[in-house]
């Protein structure tokens, strides 16, 4: 009985995993496949992508043509359940509402968390990204190097399925043979962008995305991932065989009922459950890690949301994988005589150094793409091509006014028409209506392109969270209060993004829509809005200045681990999810080894 109610939980679990997303799913998978008994606690409800995903539903079948609302911020058909930047009954506090000084906290209360809806972009951090302080004196080095994580990037790519290519570019790692699936064919707009960007010295290459462009290698990969473990190989082979490749339709953000992309609920949890070693309790809102007399974690306290009753679960090891800020919240709310300022917080660093990704966007209209013949351009739902950071040399030479890089995510094509397809076109049409308007919409449909810059934020002292002294959520759990500030590095980088987008649109023979923001404070998206929040329990090599060691193990409590984005010591421009999974798997292997040696 893998899904268990609180009262049916057993008492001899090896590991409790708090959270079921990228970190929780990967942690539980790696532990269960190697025989550990795991209890997973998820704050949200049970969720079944096979029966709940609106695969081919169209906007006319949804309220308001499916546009986003505060209750469904990414659109009606987005996979997110009970989530968003506002969760009813679960407030948080921000100290500023200024666009450049606010932090908005995204949460998803559902099995699988935000992996059900995420963008599936799966980039490796490069060698530079683990040693940023050594390169420019800003931020922190990680206590690990690319070489430490690379084997786990390989494993995660093989397990979840990531398409991409090896280009041999600086700080943009290649994968070993057989790790990546072939990338999809680019669209007309992709090829035009790549051709014109190249003239500016900017290289566009295939994106890396967790979408199966062909079936997984279920005959070879299981043995590569679980050498010597015949049971794990058999379970994984069966599960990989059951995942269908992409059918080249329907947006990934809705989730995927045929399991063609990665979400924890379709990739990590099914084999972990099939191992017989995983129990999952949903609607379990963990708020505290409890300490035994020996100073070790002896379990967690949680509220059963179905009964509003306080419950406790125990295990030899506790892993927090609740998402960076929620894990921080649990630590800070776990106060005791030994840890009056929150558990594992003898350094005072819990909650510090929150980071998001620097985001800035622009769109343009490209005459060359007007009035093209009908084409099916659903493709891989975007990210066929992207632009990795290309100015390392200029940055090293001190020619740029900001220290770190960004990549560009690009989109275009004849997407499924919807509410925004013909909106706001006065700047092109001069305000037509009637038959002429219909002709204009046909002419311009598919001729728009969009650019999203995604850049590295350097951790700073002014961006952090703490427990608010008075506000509690509907369960009575004290809530987080966020402080946020960008540095000049991020603001100037955002302005640079704007200029680059304008140059590329110009090179494509097009027109940029709206002003090109030269003021970084106006160009930058609010903190938290890119939903790449990491930090808050950073790993390091010194217990005085970091919360965990190189194994995601808290310095203060040896059997307490944090495997989500909270441990990131820097936030490279690369989207964090692949790195979260690689670190979680690495930590799980370490835990298994220590358990075998009876050290945990």
């Amino acid at each position, binding site marked *: 009985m893998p899904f268990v109610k609180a009262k049916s939980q057993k008492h001899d679990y090896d590991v409790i995993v708090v959270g079921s997303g990228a970190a929780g799913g990967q942690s539980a998978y790696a532990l269960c496949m190697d025989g550990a008994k795991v209890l997973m606690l998820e704050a949200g409800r049970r969720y079944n992508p096979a029966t709940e995903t609106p695969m081919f539903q169209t906007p006319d079948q949804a309220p308001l043509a499916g*546009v986003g609302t*505060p209750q469904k911020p990414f659109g009606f058909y987005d996979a997110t359940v009970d989530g968003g930047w506002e969760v009813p009954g679960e407030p948080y506090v921000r100290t500023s509402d200024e666009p450049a000084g606010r932090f908005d906290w995204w949460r998803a209360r559902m099995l699988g968390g935000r992996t059900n809806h995420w963008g599936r972009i799966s980039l490796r951090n490069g060698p530079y990204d683990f040693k940023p302080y050594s390169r420019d004196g800003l931020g922190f080095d990680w206590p690990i190097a690319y070489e430490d994580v690379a084997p786990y990037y390989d494993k995660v790519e093989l397990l979840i399925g990531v398409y991409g290519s090896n280009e041999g570019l600086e700080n943009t790692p290649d994968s070993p043979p057989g790790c990546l699936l072939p990338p999809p*064919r680019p669209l007309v707009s992709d090829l035009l962008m790549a051709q014109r960007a190249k003239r500016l010295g900017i290289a566009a290459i295939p994106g890396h995305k967790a979408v199966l462009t062909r079936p997984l290698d279920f005959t070879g990969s299981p043995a590569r991932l679980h050498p010597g473990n015949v049971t794990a190989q058999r379970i994984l082979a069966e599960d990989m065989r059951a995942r269908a490749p992409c059918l080249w339709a329907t947006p990934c953000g809705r989730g995927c009922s045929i399991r063609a992309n990665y979400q924890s609920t379709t990739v990590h949890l099914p084999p972990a459950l099939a191992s017989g070693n995983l129990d999952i309790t949903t609607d379990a809102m963990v708020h505290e890690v409890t300490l035994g007399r020996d100073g070790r974690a002896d379990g967690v306290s949680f509220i059963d949301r179905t009964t509003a009753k306080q419950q406790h679960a125990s295990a030899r090891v506790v892993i927090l994988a609740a998402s960076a800020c929620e894990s921080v919240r649990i630590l800070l709310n776990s106060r005791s005589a030994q840890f009056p300022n929150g558990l594992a917080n003898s350094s005072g660093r819990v909650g510090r150094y929150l980071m998001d990704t620097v985001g800035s966007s622009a769109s343009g209209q490209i005459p060359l793409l007007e009035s093209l013949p009908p084409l099916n351009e659903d493709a891989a739902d975007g990210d066929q091509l992207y632009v990795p950071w290309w100015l390392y040399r200029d940055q090293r030479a001190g020619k740029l006014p900001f220290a770190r890089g960004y990549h560009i995510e690009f989109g275009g094509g004849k997407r*499924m028409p919807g509410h925004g397809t013909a909106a706001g076109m006065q700047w092109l049409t001069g305000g037509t209506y009637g038959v002429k308007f219909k002709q204009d919409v046909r002419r311009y449909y598919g001729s728009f392109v969009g650019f999203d810059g995604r850049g590295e934020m350097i951790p700073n002292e002014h961006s952090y969270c703490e427990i608010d002294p008075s506000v509690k959520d509907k369960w009575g759990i004290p809530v987080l209060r966020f402080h946020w500030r960008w540095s000049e590095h991020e603001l100037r980088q955002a302005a640079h993004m704007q200029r680059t987008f304008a140059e590329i649109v110009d090179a494509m023979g097009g027109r940029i829509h709206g002003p090109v923001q030269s003021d970084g404070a106006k160009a930058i998206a609010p903190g938290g809005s890119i939903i790449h929040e990491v930090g808050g329990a950073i790993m390091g090599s010194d217990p005085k200045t970091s919360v965990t060691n190189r194994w995601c193990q808290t310095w203060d409590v040896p059997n307490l681990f944090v495997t989500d984005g909270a441990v990131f010591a820097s936030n490279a421009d690369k989207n964090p999810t692949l790195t979260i999974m690689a670190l979680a798997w690495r930590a799980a292997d370490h835990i298994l080894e220590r358990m075998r040696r009876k050290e945990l």
Partner: protein
Amino acid sequence: MDRRTSIKWVLAASAAWPLSGTYAAQAGSALAGRGYGTDPNLLAVYHPGELWPLTFTAPQRRLAGILADIIIPPDEHSPSASSVGVVEFIDEWVSAPYPASQRDRPIVLGGFRWLNEEATRRFGKGFSSLAAAEQNGICDDICEESRSQWRDAARFFALYRDLTAGGFYSTPVGRKDLGYMGNVPLASFDGPPPALLEKLNLP
């Protein structure tokens, strides 16, 4: 809706949220119990009026349809806006308990009022009773914001055109009008036809 589009919506909308001060995010429960909630059934088919009551009176519905069809009339490719449910869609939109709708509602209802007042001023009767040429005459004066002397009316017309087009191109008829070929399962994705790439001088 892709992530980019929706993020823009969110940013635009969040700037308009009537929340301020240190405890801003606490006000997230302002919509509790209203709207479709945070866990709606995604597989059901929804119709305007099912989730929240509609607004338009019979004369407003008539005006809404006339104006929608001025913006999207029938042509050789597709029928008119009102024939595919756009009036009901706009009624649903202005009636919804969400920030974007609450922002747009007074603009639409105020715009209807303005149209009738302007029609009465020019021709001595309501907009719906005018001849097509008279209606077009008024629309010509407000169809582009940058050159209209009636700023609010022009803002209304721009919004109403967006809503009309949003409702229309979201339907099967609208998708067909634009030649949309997707949302069907494919065994493989082969990319653009080579002849097209050659024509565009693309590799």
